[in-house]
């Protein structure tokens, strides 16, 4: 297992270098340099902040030196400070000269987005698994057909549109759920349970929206995986030796159909993180998505570059976790018998 882990970690190095190259490339997409292009930069920005930007990215130095410095800053996770008037550090808290701690922007936003993503992954698994299994067991019969219709509509419905409808229906017409932010008024005075309930109500629609498209995909995936497994010889053997159908399906078939799901959940992480932009900005949830959207509108480049890099690193981490989980669940992978 240790050897496997080391091998996987080693493979992340070229990927991280690639990510640094791509983000460096994006930074230089704008014609001229990013401080002068009229589209690229807020015209209200002062000459001082332009100068700061040039210094931050060393725009006066040769390209190769710029890249080297960018790589070094990525390595030390130093993404500078925001262009907004509060000038907070982009990634992690910093002490200023007076000893006041200035909290980092990503530091505050990341846990929120992680919470939403973990909850929606859980929701996806809890709903998609039974749907996929039912679909496969009743292949081409009414339950399968109904689930297939749900899957296709779930795929096609634009998340932001459904969010808008739910927001209006559950938040305005029937004001059951709050539709903005993470906390209700006076949440500081609530007990632990009260706070959790408050947070849950605020997160209900965003988590559902962010889970929806993944839900459809994963249940289709579970269905096809189950169908593949159910037609294999060892399932016929299990049935032939007289095992109850439930044991065959849940003990023998499902376990093997679940293995690829681990990888797929790992692969769905970038989509979930990226998808958080629309849900978070609609519901004013202070996570990575909203932070990114606001940064794009404000052309707050240090924040954009910081989130892009951290988002990619998170994805790599997610894939690594998925691979480790797979290796843990399947000894064949761990021992390198199969890829």
């Amino acid at each position: 297992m240790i050897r496997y882990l080391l091998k996987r970690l080693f493979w992340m190095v070229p990927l991280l270098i690639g990510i640094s190259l791509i983000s460096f490339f994006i930074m230089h997409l704008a014609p001229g340099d990013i401080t002068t292009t009229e589209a690229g930069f807020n015209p209200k920005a002062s000459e001082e902040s332009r100068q700061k930007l040039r210094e931050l990215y060393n725009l006066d130095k040769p390209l190769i030196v710029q890249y080297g410095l960018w790589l070094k800053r990525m390595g030390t996770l130093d993404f500078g400070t925001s262009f907004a008037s509060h000038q907070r550090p982009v990634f992690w808290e910093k002490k200023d000269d007076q000893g006041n701690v200035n909290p980092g922007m990503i530091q505050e936003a990341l846990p929120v987005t992680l919470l939403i993503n973990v909850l929606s992954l859980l929701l996806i698994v809890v709903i998609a698994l039974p749907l996929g299994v039912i679909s496969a067991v009743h292949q081409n019969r009414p339950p399968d057909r109904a689930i297939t219709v749900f899957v296709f509509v779930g795929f096609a419905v634009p998340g932001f549109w459904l969010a808008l409808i739910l927001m209006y229906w559950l938040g305005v017409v029937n004001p059951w759920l709050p539709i903005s932010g993470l906390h209700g008024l006076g949440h500081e005075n609530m007990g632990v349970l009260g706070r959790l309930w408050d947070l849950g109500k605020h997160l209900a629609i965003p988590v559902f929206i962010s889970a929806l498209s993944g839900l459809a995909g994963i249940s289709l995936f579970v269905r096809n995986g189950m169908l593949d497994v159910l037609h294999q010889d060892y399932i016929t053997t299990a049935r032939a030796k007289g095992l109850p159908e439930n044991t065959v399906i849940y003990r023998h078939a499902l376990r093997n159909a679940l293995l690829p799901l681990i990888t797929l959940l790992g692969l769905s992480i970038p989509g979930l993180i990226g998808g958080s932009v629309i849900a978070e900005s609609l519901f004013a949830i202070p996570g990575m998505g909203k932070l990114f959207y606001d940064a794009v509108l404000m052309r707050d480049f240090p924040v954009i570059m910081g989130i892009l890099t951290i988002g990619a690193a998170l994805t790599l981490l997610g894939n690594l976790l998925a691979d480790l989980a797979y290796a843990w669940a399947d000894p064949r992978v761990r021992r390198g018998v199969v890829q």
Partner: protein
Amino acid sequence: MSRAMRNPLAFWGLVIIAIVLALALLAPVLAPYDPDAIDVKSILLPPSTAHWMGTDGLGRDVFSRMLFGSRISLLVGFVAVGIATLIGVILGAISGYYRGWVDVLIMRLVDVMLSIPTFFLILAVIAFLTPSIWNIMIVIGLTSWMGVTRLVRAEFLSLREREFVLASATLGARDHRLIFRHLLPNSLTPVIVSSVLGVASAVLIESGLSFLGLGVQPPQASWGNILTEGKEYIQFAWWLSFFPGMAILLTVLGYNLLGEGLRDALDPRTNGKGKK
């Protein structure tokens, strides 16, 4: 193709696509009003015989804007997928045919691109450029070629070892003949399926971007930016958010149905009742 048409998914998908495409192509003929004509006397009118889908906050006819918006949404979808498919086929073919270090390099590039959350990548690029319909097509295209590359590479790797290709190589066929006559035509099936599915996701991305105000810019109509206005008026004018949302849903549904239907019909493994 006839086998594909007997597949109910593919059939209904194609019906939806054909209707939407016809409406988009005939927009100038069908639209009862100028989509950009502001009429202050008829602001936020509900659907009626005069305005089938009502009017918006500037008194513009929503049905006409929907028709012209469909042209933009579909155009973005097609061009973006065209770019992605072209890049994907070229890189995948090079990777699968020449193997070696080129293959390693291209596959690592695919891994890198897949590890950056796509929507973040698109938004970041748009932040550095101006949001215009051309930039959006290019950006969506440049960020969605990875799947096609992997598909084509896998096809090339397996086809390369097949007898008919080996025979042709033994007879002295050159690289370009092997690639263009034997390998490429035989690996197009999964590419077609993934392009059809790609249109669906490109339409969704474009509408999301426009909804956020970072896509197609008003006054040019797109389904996404009609919805943005729908958000503002959702308490007074349901029609402004209902129709564009349904249009996006149906279009995406159509392409997904056709894509999955084609996959079923063209894949001998899943063809017919059971597998294998």
